[in-house]
């Protein structure tokens, strides 16, 4: 239902452009006809309330949650390190989640093609919630709002980073959670 709602929003947002409007209507229609799983395989879109569960899992796994966007060059640069980390530590119960902050009207034209082209293996979700002043401090009170930003957490222990990573630096941070 939320996904449908977000698609509707996407439709409204892109309605300023006539050409896009017809494209989006088609997409929305397709999704409606073919049930939610199509949309789910393409992209999960959440507002912050819906997204919050990804920061609150308590299943003894280590979650590496990276906030990024296709337009953010330093984010795109570090993504392969997260992918590598996910591969290398697959057996250690480490899961990487990419949280896209791309503009909703660019999901179809930029975000989804990017994820496919780069063959991103880790889970990608989109966070679409304009009331940033409310949700940014809930992610971390010290986050000024620049991206890339990353949270690593395991159950109740978490650490927040408002910075770019090299693979080594990222691995070092992860190791603190492995001990």
């Amino acid at each position, binding site marked *: 239902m939320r996904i449908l709602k977000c698609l509707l929003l996407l439709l409204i947002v892109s309605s300023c452009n006539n050409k896009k409007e017809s494209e989006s209507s088609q997409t929305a229609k397709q999704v409606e006809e073919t049930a939610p799983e199509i949309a789910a395989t393409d992209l999960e879109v959440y507002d912050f309330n819906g997204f919050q569960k990804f920061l609150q899992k308590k299943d003894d796994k280590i979650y590496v949650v990276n906030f990024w966007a296709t337009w953010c060059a*330093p984010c795109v640069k570090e993504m392969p390190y997260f992918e590598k980390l996910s591969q290398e530590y697959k057996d250690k119960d480490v899961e990487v989640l990419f949280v896209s902050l791309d*503009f909703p009207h660019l999901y179809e034209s930029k975000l989804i093609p990017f994820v496919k082209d780069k063959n991103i293996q880790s889970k990608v979700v989109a966070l679409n919630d*304009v009331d*940033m*002043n409310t949700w940014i401090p809930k992610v971390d009170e010290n986050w*000024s*709002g*620049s991206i890339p930003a990353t949270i690593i957490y395991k159950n109740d222990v978490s650490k927040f980073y408002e910075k770019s990573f090299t693979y080594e630096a990222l691995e070092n941070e992860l190791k603190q959670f492995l001990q």
Partner: protein
Amino acid sequence: MKTIKILASLTLVVVMSAFTINKVVVADGYKIGDVAADFKLMNVDGKMVSLSDYKDAKGYIVTFTCNTCPYAVGYEDRIIALNNKYASLGYPVIAIMPNNTDVQPGDSMDKMKERAKSKGFTFPYLLDKDQTVYPKYGATKTPHVFILQKTSQGNVVKYIGAIDDNYQDASKVKTKYVENAVDALLKGQEVPEKETKAIGCTIKV
């Protein structure tokens, strides 16, 4: 006795280091109430601009922004509108482009000139060429606004944060943080919301 003393100091060391580790390193920069330093930066018209050039100003809407960040671009029209509304009331917009132009060539002075011309910027658009101004302010991203009020003590920081609460659609904005802040200052009142958060593009170093 000596053992106890050693133990006590050890405990102290442990407690202190624990505190240091837990304490998240907060980026240096201005806090609300700090006096902001003036600067002298080149504008897109080739002239050098300082805050002190604005003799009649009551304060300033210092806005770190750039050509290349989609969030900053999304706010351009609203930044122009802010200047059009508040410059004549004594709060001009002073826009500063903080990125390293070697890393982000789309933000070079030439590109800034093009952008200022095509958008019809009514405010100075300054290049922080040596990247010394934005760290002093503590700007971390574009767009990032600092509202200063001119007082006898200097230019006091009264607001830090976002322009409003909807980066996607200006027509759906519920709270205009910057306008509310300047309106309050013009009436001699406290700024209702002094700090806000928003997603933005990291300043390129």
